[in-house]
């Protein structure tokens, strides 16, 4: 049934004759279907190409770095001033704590925005159909998209944290010395956490199919809701906020040195909490994507 000839549209192409001769037959009609891993690799390559070819992707990355730089300079100068006013304050200064707050208040929202755009961008402009024609397995599309988002998330988290630590060292290096191990730990931890958040909001965005909605959920879940819960006088509600991904995340990447109250839990349990949220969001996103018309 299949045509074995070439696309052969040369006689009438605006670009002149012979533009397309002989192409099709060499493109491997005889090949069987590629392995699942290979197909996933190809889908990742597609998602990477799409993300990398949009300016907004790089804007998000740049914005995260600029935000962290401004935050670090501001905090550094503030702390230096505090120490000038009251030399005793010097003992409480921690670069890890300051930088992790920069991630919590600013950087993670660049990650949320980027994930929201990757996940929802195609649903507004019908672009989803061209993607799904190329990769009809929706689980594969979401997996590839999540992996690419995770890569960007890790890069943004780790790079912004490293930048913040570097700037603080320049500004108040004498007051808050950073040990190399701790610095590397927090850089990696915030990279991992931002990668997980990127996957989480790729899942949420896929379920919601709305960029604005996804970003709104991001602000609510990562910042708004935990803050309101901590405002409440009830200790139970206050402690419960620790199971939300925002507070659990900062507890993880600040290596316990958060600087504000999160919860009475420390250590790997916080990473597990973030992983749990991420898994839940991915499952909901995948289920919604599979069932709903594109």
């Amino acid at each position: 049934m299949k045509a074995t000839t070439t696309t052969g549209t040369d006689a009438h192409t605006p670009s002149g004759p012979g533009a397309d001769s002989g192409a099709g037959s060499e493109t491997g009609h005889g090949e069987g279907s590629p392995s699942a891993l290979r197909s996933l690799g190809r889908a990742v390559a597609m998602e990477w190409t799409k993300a990398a070819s949009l300016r907004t992707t790089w804007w998000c990355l740049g914005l995260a770095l600029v935000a962290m730089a401004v935050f670090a300079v501001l905090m550094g100068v503030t702390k230096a001033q505090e120490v000038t006013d009251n030399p005793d304050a010097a003992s409480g200064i921690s670069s890890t704590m300051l930088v992790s707050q920069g991630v919590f208040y600013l950087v993670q929202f660049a990650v949320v925005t980027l994930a929201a755009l990757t996940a929802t961008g195609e649903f507004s402009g019908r672009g989803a159909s061209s993607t799904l024609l190329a990769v009809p397995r929706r689980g594969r599309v979401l997996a590839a998209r999540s992996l690419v988002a995770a890569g960007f998330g890790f890069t943004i988290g780790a790079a912004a944290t490293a930048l913040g630590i570097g700037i603080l060292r320049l500004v108040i290096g004498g007051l808050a010395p950073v040990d190399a191990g701790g610095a590397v730990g927090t850089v990696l931890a915030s990279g991992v956490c931002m990668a997980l958040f990127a996957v989480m909001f790729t899942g949420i965005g896929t379920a919601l199919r709305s960029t604005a909605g996804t970003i709104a959920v991001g602000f609510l879940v990562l910042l708004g809701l935990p803050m309101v819960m901590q405002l409440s006088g009830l200790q139970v509600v206050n402690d419960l906020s620790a199971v939300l991904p925002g507070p659990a995340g900062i507890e993880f990447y600040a290596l316990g040195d958060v600087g504000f109250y999160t919860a009475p839990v420390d250590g790997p349990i916080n990473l597990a909490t973030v992983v749990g949220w991420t898994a839940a969001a991915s499952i909901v996103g995948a289920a919604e994507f599979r069932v709903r018309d594109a």
Partner: protein
Amino acid sequence: MLTVRELTKRYGDTTAVDALTFDVRPGRVTGFLGPNGAGKSTAVRLLLGLDRPTSGSALVNGRRYTDLPRPEREVGALLDGGAAHPGRSARAHLLALVRATGLPRRRVDEVLGTVGLTDVADRRVGGFSLGMRQRLGIAAALLGDPGVLVFDEPVNGLDIDGVRWVRRLMRDLADEGRTVFVSSHLMSEMQQIADRLVVVGGGRLVADAPMAELIDAWSHARTVVRTPDPGPLTAWLRDRGVPGRRVDVEQGPDGELRIQGARPEEVGDAAHGAGARVHALYREEASLEQAYLELTEGTARHTASGSGGTRGADAAPGGNGGEKTEEYR
């Protein structure tokens, strides 16, 4: 080869596609004709696995699209304007598709050349005209050199040169033995392109036949006569008519009679015989466009109204009613 069987898609109470059954065979251009909202795009999306059918099936080369191991090498599709992100360049859009499918990278430049977008390949799609976007969509459809091509309203937004180019392209693709399935809401466009027509109205199949057969069936000519004595003429035509043929007389406004089954000279002779005065007498051809619109939009109206009365609209502009049908190809 496309195989559609009892394909149905419901959204709540609305049935967008209603038990469609038809085949699209290779080696010819099959038109998919229907007014806007007739369910064409929905049917195409069901065929390509983008939407799920409520019931029935739509198969490409005997399999569901989502089950094809290498869909890009079997089917290429152009859907609403190509659907490329406005912030991405044409080249990046195609490159992403090539990477997803494992096709060789040179295919990007090849199809860009085929559709004539080489010079603007690195410009962002947001700045493209509708016609350029259509070309990009066609380029994407051709990437895998597929044996089946599905084009949803491919000439939308194209200028005359673009339209001619698309017609040639589809003709060549079909002549190479490929299956070409093209949707449109314009009968005039279909007349230029299609060998066979699948016609839908209100989600249902209205016709599935070779183009020539539909043209024969649809381009009914009739004779219109204006007379102050409609009574005697009608009686004469009913009683004696034309030997060997059935003559239908329909009463129009202002003493107009619309006669099917009798040529103007025969009606003139009848008027002479009946002693009816004739103020005007001419032959009127209903255009294919009209015939098709009546068939697709008026499925309900047709069966309800029966004879006479409400059909006056199609001859509205006085004696000019009914354009001359264009010649086929």
